[in-house]
């Protein structure tokens, strides 16, 4: 920039610096959208994200004796793993404010030790934030020995503030082989094979 009058060069650097700062900030904003998205989903119950409450909170809830809601349980197995995964009961009649327990059954159909992870979703979406769990197998990754089976517990409570027009809530779980598990390819082998491919 030696060929510009000094003042002009400074002015250019000023503008360029500000614009560069904007670009860097927007790169950060892209990443900030990840937690923002999660918070919005949690607050609004979008995406069927369920809530989590402590046992004390669940015990303090007032039971609504005059209302019955049907809770249905469904399961989906993600294509990435060899699993059997299903609810032990298909549906329950529950009173809002009372704590209930049920289980899901899972079996590892492969001959390897595999980690499973369940992700929940509630429909209708409007009911999602009133569906709270004190304990769920989906809170942690589940380790399965080869061919092992498990009955995995789920303790839930429906908030008495559940909108009156909802009388049926469906809880759906999708079961995945956990990423980072040996069933998904790790970085180094794929890059090695790729390096071989291009060298041929």
């Amino acid at each position: 920039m030696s060929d510009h009058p000094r003042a002009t060069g400074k002015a250019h650097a000023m503008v360029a610096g500000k614009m560069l700062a904007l670009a860097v900030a927007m790169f950060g904003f892209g990443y900030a959208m990840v937690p923002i998205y999660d918070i919005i989903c949690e607050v609004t119950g979008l995406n069927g994200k369920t809530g989590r409450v402590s046992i004390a909170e669940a015990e303090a809830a007032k039971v609504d004796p005059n209302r019955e809601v049907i809770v249905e349980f469904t399961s989906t197995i993600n294509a990435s793993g060899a699993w059997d995964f299903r609810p032990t009961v298909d549906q329950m009649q529950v009173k809002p404010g009372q704590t209930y327990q049920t289980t899901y059954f899972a079996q590892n159909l492969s001959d390897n030790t595999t980690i499973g992870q369940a992700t929940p979703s509630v429909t209708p979406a409007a009911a999602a934030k009133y569906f709270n769990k004190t304990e769920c197998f989906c809170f942690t990754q589940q380790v399965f020995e080869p061919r092992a089976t498990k009955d995995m517990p789920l303790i839930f409570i429906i908030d008495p503030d559940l909108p009156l027009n909802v009388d049926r809530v469906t809880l759906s779980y999708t079961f995945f082989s956990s990423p980072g598990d040996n069933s998904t390819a790790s970085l180094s082998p794929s890059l090695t094979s790729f390096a071989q491919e291009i060298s041929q």
Partner: protein
Amino acid sequence: MSYSDAGHDAHHGDHDHHGPAPGLMRWVTTTNHKDIGTLYLWFSLIMFFIGGGMALIIRAELWSPGISVVDPMFFNSMTTMHAIVMIFGVVMPAFVGLANWMIPMMLGAPDMALPRLNNWSFWIMPFAFTIMLSTLFMDSGGPAGGWTMYPPLVLQMGDSFAFVIFAIHFLGISSVMGSINIVATIFNMRAPGMTLMQMPMFVWTWLITAFLLIATIPVFAGAVTMLLTDRFFETSFFSAAGGGDPVMYQHIFWFFGHPEVYILILPAFGIISHILPTFSRKQLFGYDSMVYATASIAFLSFIVWAHHMFTTGMPLAGELFFMFSTMMISVPTGVKVFNWVSTMWRGSMTFETPMLFAIGFVIMFTIGGLSGLMLAITPADIQYHDTYFVVAHFHYVLVPGAIYSIMAATYFWIPKWTGNMYDEKLGKLHFWISTIFVNVLFFPMHFVGLAGMPRRIPDYSLQFADWNMIATIGAFGFGFSQLMFVYIIFKCIKGGEKATGEVWEGARGLEWTVDSPAPYHTFEESPTITPSTITR
């Protein structure tokens, strides 16, 4: 060149270096805004034929139902690559090239503010596109999941995925550097006395476009970086198994993607706002409202992104918000269209080639705008989503929209670039043949789209056969008529009727006050701003 032409004789060596350096290295090492503008424009023209060739492969496959010409995976690569090439390799570089050539001359500046950065911005692009296009020859093939690269589909791509992501990063860096340069030029290098509200419209639209680029390209870079780490480094941004969400990608992507579509059209608005007044022999109607309308469109473009996602299961409140905010964009856009019409009203109009392309732009861009309004209506969009109606919509705004504006700009300013008039007869013929075929190509897509033909699929139901055949005829007609464009450009470079400095009778603006062809260095002394040299 060891010195850019921005020097004010501060260094004695400058006196000996007033022409371009000899040989090919001139183009590699140049920091001259006109040279770099020329490089961008040539690059864009070459990519136009590469992307166009891909489009013809797509249309050849769709000539008749059934899998006939290429295999489905390659077809998907073609739809994906066609989009990437046309957006990042044709329209954006063409606008940046025009900005390089014209903005310093329109502002009375000797060069861009950061000439060396400018050289980098350009020379990154050929390398980025070499990497991008090379994926087509790799074992795992080119990207085939659509240019929007939605996970989880895109994560199933082979290892050439990494090359695609790095190419996008490079293209993004090039765009952001180019934009920073344009903003610095506009803020710091205007001729003394030229206020912001006296700037030519092309400069205004580019200033706003540059801000859009700086604000959104990094978000896109972030999104593709997340894809990269999800694919190779076991993060779970978009993987439900790890607590992520693939729909979140769509939000991040379209937060970039929607402003991007205005990046592809705002400079076109600027170009049209120069050509219509020139050939109507009037001043632009409603200059102030044009500036504010452009700024409003840019602002609104940040709060409409989820209209690309009406079928993902948003809550009603979200759908309503994005529907209304999207429809609101038609207000400032309408202001622009009515201002253009009012500019022509009772003007002494003549219909040289740039004017034909500009009027064609106004009419056909409005058709695309209207189908966009239809797509904005949420309940209707659920039917139209991912059909050929969407393809018809965005091709109307991009081909007889953005591409026509670039062709109009080329015909309008090429006498200034080369010093020769282009062949007017051939230019007009080029316009009419292109316009007939572009409508034969894209108009039937509205019909098959409304009838439910899905996009991005190599096969289709028998009922769509006739319209697809017609569209393919249009595609080949339009594609081959662009060879005329190349011929006209070469002919104009080689010779022709000598152009005056003013070129067009009564043309206003500083770029018409210098000789044709524009000398290698212009406005080394700042010009004096008079009412006749500002365009408003």
